[in-house]
C-alpha cells in the first residue's frame, strides 16, 4: 500500500507524511540483433519533491480564489518606479527593492488582449492540459510584461480580448489554475472546476 506524500510546515520545518518515492525494479536492456547481449539497464525514478513558492506564494493562492496578484516597484529612488509586473516579481529587477503586491484582477479582466499565441499539437510527459494546447501571451494596459498562459475556450488570434477564468473548485495550486476564454462565454460553459472568480 502506498499513499501520496503530503507536507505541512510547522515551527518553520517541513513535516512529511506518506511515500515520497516508489521502488520499481531495474530491467535489463538487451540487443535482439546480437544474441540478446546485455546493453544496459532501466532506472525507474518516481519521486515527490517539496517545493517552496516563497514570496510568490500569494500569487498561487490568489488564482485559486479568483484573483490575479501582480507587483509594482514603489521605491521613490528607483529610476523605473511605478513599473508593474505580471508575472509577479517579488523584487524590482532594476533597484531590487521589495515590490508592492497589487490586485490587478480588474485590469486583467478589462484589458487582457492576446499579444501572441501558439496551438501546440505536442506535449511532454506529465502534461495535464487538454490537447491541443492553445498557448497565449496576454498583455494588459499599464503592465510592462506579457503573461504566458493558455486559452480554454475560443480560437486564439492576436488582438483578441480574453478574460481570466480560475480553477476555484479543487484547485491544483499551480499556474494551470489560471486560464482564459474569449469574451462572452457563459459561466456554466467553462471547463470543469473553473469559474470567473
Amino acid at each position: 500500500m502506498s499513499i501520496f506524500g503530503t507536507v505541512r510546515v510547522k515551527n518553520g520545518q517541513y513535516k512529511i507524511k506518506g511515500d515520497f518515492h516508489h521502488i520499481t525494479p531495474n530491467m535489463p536492456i538487451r540487443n535482439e540483433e546480437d544474441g540478446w547481449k546485455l546493453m544496459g539497464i532501466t532506472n525507474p525514478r518516481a519521486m515527490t519533491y517539496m517545493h517552496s513558492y516563497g514570496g510568490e506564494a500569494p500569487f498561487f493562492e490568489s488564482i485559486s480564489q479568483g484573483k490575479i496578484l501582480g507587483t509594482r516597484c514603489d521605491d521613490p529612488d528607483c529610476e523605473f518606479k511605478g513599473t508593474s509586473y505580471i508575472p509577479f516579481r517579488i523584487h524590482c529587477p532594476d533597484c531590487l527593492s521589495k515590490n508592492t503586491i497589487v490586485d490587478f484582477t480588474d485590469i486583467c479582466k478589462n484589458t487582457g488582449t492576446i499579444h501572441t499565441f501558439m496551438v501546440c499539437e505536442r506535449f511532454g510527459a506529465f502534461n495535464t492540459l487538454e490537447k491541443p494546447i492553445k498557448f497565449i501571451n496576454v498583455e494588459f494596459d499599464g503592465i510592462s510584461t506579457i503573461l504566458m498562459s493558455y486559452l480554454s475556450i475560443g480560437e486564439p488570434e492576436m488582438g483578441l480580448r480574453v478574460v481570466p477564468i480560475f480553477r476555484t473548485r479543487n484547485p491544483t495550486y499551480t499556474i494551470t489554475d489560471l486560464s482564459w476564454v474569449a469574451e462572452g462565454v457563459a459561466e456554466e460553459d467553462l471547463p470543469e472546476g473553473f469559474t470567473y472568480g
Partner: protein
Amino acid sequence: MIKFSDRQLKTPKLMRPVYLVTAGQSKFDRAIPEKRTEELCVDALTMAARLIDKSPAELKSYIHSCYYGHFADHFGDQLLGEAVIHDRLGLDPLGNIGVKTGGATGGSTLWEAVKTVASGYSDCVLAMGWERMDEVPTDEGNHLISCAADKDWETPLGHIYTGYYAVMAQKYWQVFGKEEESFRRTLAEIAVKHHGYARFNPYAQAPMDITVNDVLNSPVVAYPLRALDCCLMSVGAACAIICDEDTAMKLTHNTKNKPLRIWVAAGSHTLRPACRRDMEIPLLPNESPDQYADLGERFPGGDRYPGFTGFLAARMSAYYGYRMAGIVDPMEDLDVIELHDAFTISDVQTYEDVGLRPYGYGRDYVESGDCYHTNPNTGEPGKLPSNLSGGLIGCMHAVGATGIMQTLEVASHIWNRWAEIHGDQKIWDEFGREKPDDWTDLQVKDAKRALAISHAGVGSHVTATILMDPDHLLKEDA
C-alpha cells in the same frame, strides 16, 4: 534591465591573443546504445589529436585546465558527470569545471576556455561538451527540456518547451512574415537546405533529400511550424583545444592546422519571454539609429523591441563580439557561419539579431541565395554560406556539444580541410552510414573568417564565437 550603462557596454578585451588549435567530435545520433558518454568524449578528443598528428597522450600533456559543457544532468541521470568524464579522459589532477547555459552550453564552454587562456591562467585548455538525450523516451525528454523553462510559471503548461518558444515564432510569422505563403516556403527551404547539407556530413544524424513540399506536408507541431522545421534531439560529444600563441605554434608545427584566432562574446535575456520589457534596439556597427524609426509602420505590430520577435541575447553577443574582433559588416567581413537553427523561423530571427540583414528582412538572406554554399539563383558561390554541417536541424543538437561542433565545422573551412574531414570513406564506414553517390565538397574557398552562434532556449543565453586566420585580422589590437 532595459537600460545599460557605458560600463556594461564596454567592448570586451582579451589580455593576450587566443587560438583554436584543433577540435574533434563523435558520431551524432538520436540514440547510441553501444557507447557510454565517456566513449563519445574519447572519440572527440582522439579526433582532435589526429587532426594535428598527435597521439591523445601527447595532446593531453599540453592541457592545463578543462571546461566541460553538459547541460542536463537529469537527461544522463548522473550528477557531476563532468568528474566522470574528466577521470575517464585521464586528466586528473588538472582543475576542471562544468558549464551549463541551456542550448548555448557549447558556446559558453568555449567562452570560459578562451578567457582562461587570455588571462594567462592556462596556456592550453580543453573545452569538451556532450549530451546524452537517449536515456529517456521522447515524451519524457520533452518534459526534461521543459524543466529548463520557469518551473512554476511555464513548465506546468504542457511540459513542452516548443510551447514557450513557438509563441515567438507565431509573432514573427504574423508581424514580419505577414503570414505570406512565400515566407512559409522560405522557411521550408531552410529545412531542405540543412537536411540536404547533412547528407554530405558523416557525423550528421538526419541527412535527407527532401523538397519544400515535403516540409510543408510534414505533421504540424505548432502552426506554422512542422516536424521538419524543428531541430533534432541527439547524443554526441565535441571538443576544442584552446591555446596561447606559443603553445598553438608548437602544437600545430608541421601539421595541416593553422592556429586560428578565437574570440567569444556572450549575452543573456529573461528566461521567461513573459518578462521581456521594451527597450531601444542596441545597434551593431553596420546599423544606424534612424533605420528602425519607422519599423512599426513597415511591419505593423513590429514596434516593440525585443518584443517576442528579437533575441536580445543574440544581438548582445554580436554587439560585443563584432566590436571585440573588428567586424563591421558580417556579410562582408565573414566567409562562413553556423547559426543555431532550433527552428527554421528562429534561424531567420537570428539573421537579424546578428546583423546579416536589418530587423524585418531576415528572409532575404535565404531568398537572395546568400546563405547557400552555391547560390541557387546564380550558380555562383553563396556570399556567406550558413550551416553547411546541416546545423541543428540536419546534423545534431547534442546540447552541450552543439556550439563546439559548429566551431569545428567553420574552422574546417578556414583550415581548408572540410573535404578531408567530411569525405573520408573510413569515417562513413565506421559510423555505418552510406556516403551518397552525389557527395559534394562543401569547402568554402579561401575562407578566412567565421562565426558560430550558440543559443539557449527562448534566448536566455547566446554566445558568438568568432574565428579568424591570424593573417587576415580586421583589427590590429584585437
